[in-house]
């Protein structure tokens, strides 16, 4: 029966058609270009103008960058090679002076010390920044501030050890006194013990030990510091110290205690209201007036303190933003669990608040690192300060773009990688559902 019926229909397809690929103009590079560059007459014109603009910029920069002057020994030699005018860059200056731009006037035979410090810095940062690293390395992170300072400045090994011992002492006192007298008194005693140690005992003890067992490195004065080493030293110190300080200030600003709050607000608003350069003037000219007569301490240390305070005020505002963005329910939930203030902060509030403020924190870091160039104004020889010295050299007199370009490139690499890391961290800590 079905046979006869089948003949009433001319053709019945019993298999699916092969899927056709989309038209060439919609996929691949062509489709992409049509969608993103030539989607309309206006867009097309804009694209063409942009291409011309990029080509023009590159035609200016590329021939200049690729000039065969790597081995030149002076600007006039460069000019001979490229044939006069401003036709090409003079890279000889970078080849000859890059060590100076990186290390300043640090003694050449001791270069291994800053290099080792930098390597140790990376190793100390690794367990803080990435999760795949063994946690035991955190001990290195804790020891690094003292180790790094000792390696850079040299001198007796007992000084950093004495400084570190202050922390150990404070910790021990807090631990054992708390058991006897309760946490608050224990804390006060511990802090007092550490401060007394640093103020009165640390230096004599370190000196005596140094006489007994003279163990140390050749010391290097701060005047010999310079270049990117100086920028990184100041930047890393300020970044490392300003985060905890900023958190404390932010908590102070958010607290219910009126006097503590007003002190924190006053400090933060004052520091944020004045330019960093005025604080550096304070460091270079006024600090010795504020301190007891006869106190002299290192200009780099003074600058570090000021940059740190400056960064801490900004950090406090960033962290406060994170605290304010946290729903009130989180605070109430912590209270409901019966956690006291510090436990609630440590276990519930801070992990979330800091996560929210990662972009702000990292951009503050970047800002601090960039602001280390300001120390050239008060006469320290950071890369920018050194560039003036190099330009004053008779062999390189008249050179401009190569040095600035090199410095800019180095800063760009550091800052750009920091901002990329913050994006990575944000993605890693992303726990919301989107």
């Amino acid at each position, binding site marked *: 029966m079905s046979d006869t019926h089948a003949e009433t229909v001319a053709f019945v397809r019993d298999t699916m058609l092969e899927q056709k690929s989309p038209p060439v103009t919609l996929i691949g590079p062509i489709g992409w270009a049509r969608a993103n560059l030539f989607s309309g007459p206006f867009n097309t014109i804009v694209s063409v103008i942009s291409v011309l603009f990029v080509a023009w910029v590159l035609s200016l920069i590329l021939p200049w960058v690729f000039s065969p002057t790597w081995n030149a020994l002076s600007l006039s030699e460069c000019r001979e090679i490229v044939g006069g005018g401003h036709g090409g860059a003079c890279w000889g200056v970078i080849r000859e002076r890059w060590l100076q731009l990186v290390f300043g006037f640090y003694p050449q035979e001791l270069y291994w010390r800053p290099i080792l410090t930098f390597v140790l810095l990376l190793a100390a940062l690794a367990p803080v920044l990435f999760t795949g690293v063994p946690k035991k390395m955190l001990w290195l992170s804790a020891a690094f501030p003292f180790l790094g300072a000792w390696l850079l400045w040299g001198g007796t090994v007992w000084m950093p050890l004495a400084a570190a011992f202050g922390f150990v002492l404070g910790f021990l006192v807090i631990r054992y006194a708390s058991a006897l007298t309760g946490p608050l008194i224990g804390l006060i005693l511990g802090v007092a013990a550490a401060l007394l140690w640093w103020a009165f005992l640390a230096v004599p003890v370190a000196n005596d030990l140094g006489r007994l067992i003279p163990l140390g490195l050749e010391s290097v004065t701060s005047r010999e510091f310079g270049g990117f080493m100086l920028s990184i030293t100041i930047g890393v110190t300020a970044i490392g110290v300003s985060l905890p300080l900023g958190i404390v200030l932010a908590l102070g600003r958010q607290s219910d205690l009126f*006097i503590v709050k007003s002190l924190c607000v006053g400090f933060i608003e004052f520091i944020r209201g004045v330019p960093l350069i005025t604080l550096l*003037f304070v460091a270079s000219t006024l600090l*010795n007036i504020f301190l007891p007569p006869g106190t002299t301490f290192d200009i780099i240390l003074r600058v570090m303190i000021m940059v740190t305070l400056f960064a801490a005020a900004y950090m406090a505002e960033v962290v406060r933003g994170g605290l304010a963005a946290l729903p009130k329910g989180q605070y109430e939930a912590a209270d409901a669990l019966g956690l006291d203030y510090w436990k609630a902060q440590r276990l519930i509030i801070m992990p979330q608040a800091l996560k929210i403020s990662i972009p702000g924190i990292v951009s503050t870091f970047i800002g601090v690192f960039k602001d280390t160039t*300001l120390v050239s104004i008060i006469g320290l020889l950071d890369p920018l300060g050194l560039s003036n010295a190099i330009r004053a050299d008779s062999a390189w007199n008249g050179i401009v773009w190569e040095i600035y370009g090199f410095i800019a490139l180095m800063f760009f690499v550091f800052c750009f990688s920091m*901002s990329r890391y913050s994006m990575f961290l944000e993605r890693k800590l992303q726990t919301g559902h989107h």
Partner: protein
Amino acid sequence: MTTVPDTPQGSFRLSMLIYDTRYRSMTIQIIALIGFLLLVGWLINNTLYNLATLGKPIDFGFLSEPAGYDINQRLIEYNSQSSHWRASVVGLLNTLLVAVLGCITATVIGVVVGVLRLSPNWLVARIMTVYVEIFRNVPVLLWIVFTMAILIETLPAPSAFRGDDPASTLKLFDSMAFTNRGFYIPEPLFTRGLGDISVGGAFNISLNLIAFLVVFVGSLLIARRVSRKADAVQEQTGLRPRTWPQRLAIIILPSTALLIALGFYLGLPELKGFNFGGGIYMRNSLIALWLALSLYTAAFIAEIVRAGILAISKGQTEAAAALGIKPRRVMSLVILPQALRVIIPPLISQYLNLTKNSSLAIAVGYMDLTGTLMGITLNQTGRELETVLMGMLVYLTISLIISVVMNWYNESVKLRER
């Protein structure tokens, strides 16, 4: 037999200062206050002692002494016989000048770049990303000295404009000269000017400028009333009368009439001897600082604008389209007004940053407050404490004023819910 009564419940014991939450906060605060006061007292004590040893008691008398140095870029009359106080005021005005100029250009560039970063055109968006990343990741001080170097190295010297067949010519209809010493731009002059008015004998303000501003602002206000009336008509009838020719005329005609009445003309820069005369002379240092600060801050503003626009949900665009608003007006009528609420607070802090960064003028020799009061005056008088504290106070005041004004504006554009 005697009994020792127990301490009655609820009476105060000393340990309650620490263990009772009612008193503990008080204890902590008083300890903090005492610590703070001790610190301040210690610092002040040290300072007084040190100053006494140095033989320099705090004294602001140096402000009235003649400064003895020249300031080449200035807004008010000044010569080397003027006092340090006047030098500081010149510096402050220079700071404000570059800050205001910088804020305006940075906003314009920043908004344009921020909007273009969201352009559907891939190439344009990428170019803008490159601009933003390059400027954000390199220190502003480097940009300032770099811009200064560009101006000095690439522009022609004034001598290049001389001779019958000069190497360089004036730009823009012979009205502007860009030289490696600075820019010469046309100067507004009046044949029948009203002269200047002296404010307290300290400086002069041009009456022409005041008259022009009064007329211009007045006509703006009238134009706004016309626009309001059109709004009222639209509310009642649903049809909006065409008012823009009327408003344009109200804004332009009175100002033009005033300018003609005052005999307005442009004083063009002319080559006189080895240099240019006439016109307004903007020094290299001002231009470099202005350009570098604008471009640097604009990169940050661009990111703020972009974030602000992205914060507005897509539904708003779609709703605007559904209401029949033309695509090209969606941005100005729907997106930007809402994005503004997100944009304004960080924008304020960028303005503050720009103002504070203008203190880097000292790197290119622009005589701002840092260069005069905290620079040469400090070095000449040796009064570190007074000058640096005064400088900090001035910057603090400027910052607070900008914050207050901008917070007030922020309040006025805030979303009003019920």
